[in-house]
């Protein structure tokens, strides 16, 4: 054994490299360089090669058999091809990958100031689409290569080898993310059908302890909101409704309770008493009674409800991490604090998180370690995308209603004839003391043993325990038209979800001449279990939050609870073979068994194979100098998913539910007999949904490593799509109201193109530029649905918007095509006969040309699926300044703007009216408009049909983040022991270019957590994204 010392510098600028790792090849003996780039290492006898590596530099090997002092200049990495990429139970160099694996640029990703891991991934990996709402902490739609199933479209997320989730991860802790899109996911078998996102968190790196701090503080602005009519404009619109409906002053139905019955509307001084003026005896404050005379002044100018419920919201994030490592052990600790206040008042997402990842080396052959992540979160959220959610009642609540009545209590639609919306400010004010807390532990312990030279055995046990706890108070909205005299109630509940994953693998790797072989076999067991319970009581004497305990209610009480369990058991094998670095072949197979299927159809085999040809390694390519690397890939894989299949699926079952099976058989009025009902009809033959994915891809690095690009074409064919049973035998005639099983019914197909391109330019020594573009497209088509060949879905109230039909994409918008407005009775007479036709209402296209507009004239009027989505990242640095910007866009999708039912059709429900609809609707005098005439009642020709009037182009281009940073000179900082200090200013969602006529084109589905395809692209009132402005620092010791 001998000691070798030396220094490591950067070849480019001769600056010392701190923390470069020095490893004796063929051993686990290693060290790291000091801040001045020096190191000292004991080289065991018989060993002579040192491997020197550092992030961002090419590895270098030095023979030290004849020297004991060395000086190494590392070349900056010019290509990412040698990056190690985790691809599912194994890791490969990027250049050896044979499947469609998108490697996320984690450094760029972390620049977007968001609260969830899903949001951070938006536009970062080709083939991955992420859509979020503006609500802090809300769930996002996450799709790899589009929507392909009726059930669960969420990809599998593996965090350090354990089934986890991205939602609550501390983005700062992430070391790398890979997205497996094709047969490369087949090794995950049943869980791989929607793709797999592999997240690896940071480990301690060799060298002295490093402390870093990253933090930002900023403000999210409230945004412009809706352009709603003011009180006078609204009153005029109501009068226009009456006129258009053929009424005259004096007729029954003329006028309004608030604005009188005159020729012109008169804005009253009070809305309670109804339409009252100063001097009315009932406006005397002495007569105020919150139930019978809730004296409320009219807001003559009009209340801007959006403005009232929103605020400029502070947001901040702080992360501190400490890490270190040696040849014996390494550790990474971090603490994170996130406090994102929502632009809706009183709404927030606060998270405290701690991570501890450690590894110990026992001798040369054994490694043990753990990854642990614990967080605690307070994140009460509102309902979003529904007619009762705050951003919906904000456009539904009438402008004449003030926030408060004369006594300082909330005002509302109990003042007569103003619709049935609710005071949106009262709603969110009353939610401010609600709680929704989670604490969650995720992690694993593992051990690895190397033996017999070429073998490594690994075992890992890990899982997630998620505990949730919540309570909320349901107030009596005394100010509302509806539900103003009921009883208050309080609900409190808790639950936990747990899962564990136990994985054992054995790897053999060896090289025979030009043949490189790696074989992996393994087993995996996954178990899910969870329980929840809740209780409700009504009639609380006091609504003070300090009084909110279940025992304090005096009225009706009830409780509920549930539990679930399921498991998976799998065996798998994988072969990776390479010949001379030119011909690469991967093959894998997995056998999965799932508890949710009946015993004889429980198991499935899921094979995958992929191959690549690195053309650039061929001799004939040697002369082609502009190509640095060129690889052609192809893959085929079969995967599966158990979709939304639950443990009840195979069985006929009975249950008891108070609301469904109980009956007061002895006439007590309060004590029904519980009873049983057939709750589930089983289908024992339901089995795996099968996905066959074929993929062809090209990876190239060209022009002196300046440009990397990847193009992928794929086809994903889904057979035996799982969906709630359809077809005659499942009609209520035969099965009553029993819950239907998921069955394998339909076929679906997606095909598309993913593209990514990165351009690195070192324009000069001081000026660098990196541009990355990501392009994702898919084309979705339903191949078969049994029975009628279609089914309808989506929408609110009686409005059905979407049809799933063979030959069309999932969730396509289906209705009447508006070709204009009827301009006159003459126009109506000359047009095909149409129910409810009237001047100023919609003229529909006679699709089948039979002279009559009826249900047969409904047609496909739009699709929620974009032609493509794209992300564009710019990163520039000049000397100590850096600038980056990230843009995300969606092109070619349609949005069904359902909010227009409320804002453009005052007959649909009274309440707020969109300014444009109030002042520019069709009248005989104002015919050059697309906004239909206002009537007292709706009709087939206006708001009682699904039509293209509600379709708006959903394309948008959004600047998701832009920042300017400055790194302070090292010489100045080293005095304080500071290694690196960067400060920056940033804006998120700075601007959006769109023609969408609603608030925000970035729309999640109504219920992202259910992850189904229904309600895709329907705007039911959405929590918008608004610009935010931040300052931040990055600091390393």
């Amino acid at each position, binding site marked *: 054994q001998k000691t070798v010392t030396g220094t490591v510098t950067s070849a480019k600028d001769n600056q010392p490299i701190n923390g470069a790792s020095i490893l004796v090849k063929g051993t686990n003996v290693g060290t790291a360089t000091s801040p001045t780039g020096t190191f000292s290492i004991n080289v065991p006898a018989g060993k002579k090669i040192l491997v020197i590596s550092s992030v961002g530099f090419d590895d270098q090997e030095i023979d030290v058999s004849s020297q004991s002092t060395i000086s190494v200049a590392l070349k900056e990495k010019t290509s990412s091809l040698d990056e190690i990429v985790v691809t599912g139970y194994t890791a490969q160099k990027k250049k050896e990958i044979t499947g469609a694996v998108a490697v996320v640029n984690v450094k760029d990703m972390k620049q977007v100031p968001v609260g969830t891991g899903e949001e951070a991934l938006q536009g970062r990996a080709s083939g991955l689409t992420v859509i979020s709402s503006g609500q802090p902490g809300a769930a996002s739609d996450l799709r790899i290569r589009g929507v392909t199933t009726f059930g669960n479209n969420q990809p599998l997320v593996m965090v350090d080898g354990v089934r986890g989730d991205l939602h609550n991860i501390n983005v700062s802790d992430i070391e790398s993310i890979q997205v497996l899109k094709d047969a490369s996911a087949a090794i995950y078998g049943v869980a791989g059908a929607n793709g797999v996102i592999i997240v690896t968190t940071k480990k301690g790196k060799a060298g002295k302890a490093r402390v870093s701090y990253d933090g930002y503080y900023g403000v999210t602005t409230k945004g412009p909101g809706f352009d709603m009519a003011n009180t006078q404009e609204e009153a005029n619109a109501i009068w226009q409704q009456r006129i258009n409906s053929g009424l005259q002053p004096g007729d029954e139905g003329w006028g309004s309770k608030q604005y009188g019955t005159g020729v012109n509307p008169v804005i009253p001084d009070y809305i309670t008493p109804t339409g009252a003026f100063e001097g009315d005896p009932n406006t005397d404050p002495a007569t105020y009674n919150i139930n019978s005379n809730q004296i409320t002044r009219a807001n003559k100018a009009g209340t801007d409800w959006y403005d009232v419920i929103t605020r400029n919201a502070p947001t901040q994030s702080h992360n501190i991490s400490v890490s270190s490592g040696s040849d014996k052990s390494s550790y990474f600790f971090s603490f994170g604090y996130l406090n994102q206040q929502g632009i809706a008042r009183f709404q927030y997402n606060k998270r405290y998180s701690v991570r501890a990842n450690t590894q110990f080396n026992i001798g040369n052959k054994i490694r043990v370690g753990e990854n642990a992540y614990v967080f605690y979160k307070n994140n009460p959220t509102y309902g979003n995308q529904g007619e009762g959610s705050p951003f919906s009642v904000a456009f539904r609540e009438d402008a004449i209603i003030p926030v408060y009545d004369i006594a300082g209590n909330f005002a509302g639609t109990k003042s007569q004839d103003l619709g049935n919306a609710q005071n949106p400010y009262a709603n969110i004010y009353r939610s401010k003391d609600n709680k929704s807390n989670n604490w969650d532990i995720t992690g694993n312990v593992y051990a690895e043993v190397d033996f017999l030279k070429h073998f490594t055995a690994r075992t890992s046990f890990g899982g997630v325990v998620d505990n949730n706890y919540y309570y909320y108070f349901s107030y009596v909205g005394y100010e509302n038209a*509806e539900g103003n005299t009921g009883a208050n109630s309080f609900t409190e509940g808790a639950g936990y979800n747990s899962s564990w994953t136990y994985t054992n693998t054995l790897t053999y790797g060896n090289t025979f001449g030009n043949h490189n072989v790696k074989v992996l076999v393994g087993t995996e067991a996954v178990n899910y279990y969870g329980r929840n319970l809740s209780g409700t009581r009504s009639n609380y004497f006091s609504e003070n939050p300090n009084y909110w305990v279940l025992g304090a209610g005096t*009225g*009706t009480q*009830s409780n509920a609870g549930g539990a679930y369990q399921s498991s998976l058991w799998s065996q798998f094998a994988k072969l990776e073979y390479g010949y001379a670095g030119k011909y690469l072949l991967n093959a894998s197979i997995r056998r999965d068994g799932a508890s949710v299927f009946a015993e004889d159809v429980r198991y499935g085999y899921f094979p995958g194979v992929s191959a690549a040809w690195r053309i650039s390694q061929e001799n004939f390519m040697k002369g082609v100098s502009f190509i640095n690397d060129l690889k052609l890939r192809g893959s085929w894989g079969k995967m599966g998913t158990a979709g939304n299949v639950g443990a009840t699926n195979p069985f006929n079952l009975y249950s008891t539910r108070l609301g469904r099976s109980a009956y007061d058989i002895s006439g007590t009025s309060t004590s029904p007999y519980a009873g049983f009902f057939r709750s589930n009809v089983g289908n024992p033959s339901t089995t795996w949904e099968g996905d066959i994915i074929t993929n062809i891809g090209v990876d190239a690095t060209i022009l002196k490593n300046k440009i990397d690009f990847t193009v992928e074409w794929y086809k994903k064919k889904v057979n035996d799509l799982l969906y709630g049973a359809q077809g005659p035998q499942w009609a209520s*005639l035969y099965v009553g109201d029993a819950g239907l099983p998921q069955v394998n019914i339909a076929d679906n197909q997606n095909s598309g193109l993913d593209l990514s391109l990165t351009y690195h330019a070192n324009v000069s020594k001081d000026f660098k530029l990196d541009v990355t573009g990501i392009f994702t497209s898919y084309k979705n088509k339903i191949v078969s649905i049994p029975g009628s060949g279609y089914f309808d879905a989506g929408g609110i109230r009686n409005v059905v918007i979407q049809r799933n039909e063979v030959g069309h994409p999932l969730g396509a918008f289906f209705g009447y095509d508006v070709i204009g407005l009827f301009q006159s009775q003459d126009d109506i007479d000359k047009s095909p006969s149409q129910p409810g036709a009237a001047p100023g209402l919609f003229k529909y296209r006679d699709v089948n040309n039979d002279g009559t507009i009826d249900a047969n004239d409904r047609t496909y009027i739009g699709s929620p699926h974009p032609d493509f989505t794209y992300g564009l990242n710019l990163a520039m640095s000049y000397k100590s300044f850096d600038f980056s910007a990230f843009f995300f866009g969606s092109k070619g999708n349609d949005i069904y703007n359902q909010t227009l039912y409320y804002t453009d059709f005052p007959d649909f429900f009274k309440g707020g009216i969109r300014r444009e609809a109030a002042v520019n609707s069709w009248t005989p005098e104002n015919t050059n408009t697309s906004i239909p005439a206002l009537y007292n009642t709706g009709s087939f020709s206006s708001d009682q049909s699904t039509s293209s009037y509600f379709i708006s182009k959903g394309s948008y281009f959004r600047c998701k983040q832009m920042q300017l940073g400055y790194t302070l000179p090292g010489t100045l900082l080293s005095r304080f022991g500071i290694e690196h200090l960067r400060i920056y200013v940033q804006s998120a969602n700075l601007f959006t270019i769109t023609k969408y006529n609603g608030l925000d084109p970035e729309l999640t589905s109504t219920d992202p957590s259910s992850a189904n395809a229904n309600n895709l692209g329907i705007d039911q009132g959405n929590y918008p994204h608004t610009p935010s402005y931040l300052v931040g620092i990055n600091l390393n010791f």
Partner: protein
Amino acid sequence: CSKDFLNKPPLGTLNPEIVASEVGVQGVLIGAYSLVDGEGASGDGFASGASNWIFGGVASDDANKGSDPSDVADAAPMEDWTITPTNGAIPQKWKLCYSGAQRCNDVLRVLPLATDIPAEEATQISAQARFLRAFYHFELKKIFGNIVYADENLTLDNTTNTTDVWPNIEADLNFAVDNLPETFSDEGRVNKWAAKALLAKTYMFQHKYSDAYTLLKDIIANGKTTKGEKYALLPHFYSNFNPAQKNSAESVFAAQTSVQDGSSVDWGGDPNGNYGDILNFPYTGGPGACCGFYNPSQDLADAFKTDANGLPLLDTWYSGNHVSDVTTPYVGNLDPRIDWTMGRKGIPYLDWGNHPGDAWIRNPGADGHFSPIKNVYAASQKDSYTDVGSAYWGPTELVANNVNIIRFADVILWAAECAADAGDLAAAMDYVNQVRDRVTDSNTWVKKGGSYDAANAVYTGGTNADTYKIGLYTSFPSKDYAIKAVQFERRLELAMEGHRFFDLVRYGTAGTVLNAYYDRYRSIMPLKANAHWTAGKNEYFPIPQGEIDNLNSDGTERLVQNPGY
């Protein structure tokens, strides 16, 4: 590892073998009863409620839908008969009734698996199940006409809606008549007499008047409630709608409701209070807290006009000034039942104070000026017979107010019809007068300035709230007159109870009555503007298109759409 590890039974449910015991089967039977209120199965809704307020009420001249025209828009076409097979209200009733029928079949399927049930009890269980199965099919039959009889032998291969199902309904009811006891300790169960009454109703709908008459006379003479109380008309008319007086001597068959049982916040289904009528309360005031639906029509109010003898204006009720007209109200005599049937401006609304008129009406132009009252509760009953129904639109009130499906007055008036049909005019008149007689007692009338006794549904003190005058018929001069008088009496006695449209179809007068009614109102009621009832088509509602599409989708035609749709 694998085999046991992958056996993960569902939690919180029962398999059929566990249910197959005496207690289990009785529980499944309760599950079959639990849909009698029209709520609690997937796909249910306001249209499936036991009161049939949409199909029997809004579709007739009894009531307007109420609220804003676009609210529960699927019920709007019932006002003007623009209903189409894709209407969203019709599948609610269709699915609910077939769910009920299948729950009955579940009882019959599980029963033989249970070995611990004494034979007599087993027979009673099947008899109750078959009664309920007949009831669910009866509801389907009167609404949809051409239906499938879903008994335990129904398969894909023998499904058809072109076969007459009356014999199946009768067979189930005859089994129930033969095997049900007269009394049970649970007063909400159906007994032999309820079975006879439903069988009589079946005969009425088939115009088998003589068969019906025999049964009805037996019921009137000997019938008793499940509690063993002899059937009788209650002294106070409104006691029939009072949650404190449910399952009384007048109750032949009713949907039992309950509150404060924890079901109001159980969104696995709909709560056990009268959820079907949860919208049918005054708007912004009074009981219920929501939503201003099911407003009695002006025509119904006018039908309560009486002449100097206290008899109804059988031909001219709609002429002259309108009752409670906003500008020039009718000032003559009224049948006192009017103010137990609808809330009118200035008249006490139980103990909620005087009805304020349009302040409680959501959209007077479309809804008219009256509020329903038979499904509500007294202010003094709040909290004892009500419950919070947490709905997203706010805390609404649920009521433990049974829904009358057959009450004894109904039975007596069927007998009157049969008597009139048989030409026994004296008997017909006597039956009608029995029903009228109980409201001749002025102590039972609505009073101003008195106090409402919610325990007995009567006012104490005060003076008559309006000019009430009701008298008994002294002669039915002809068969035609008798039939007209009986039909008019049914309208008055059973108004707002969901029978009216089905009665009109049964009488064969729906076209003349409804189209004349629409003509009178089309110029002032926006939803009546183009209303027209078409004979040969609108006797029945369309069969839900989705059900037809689905059941015929494999190429076998199992369901045929009703004529005209």
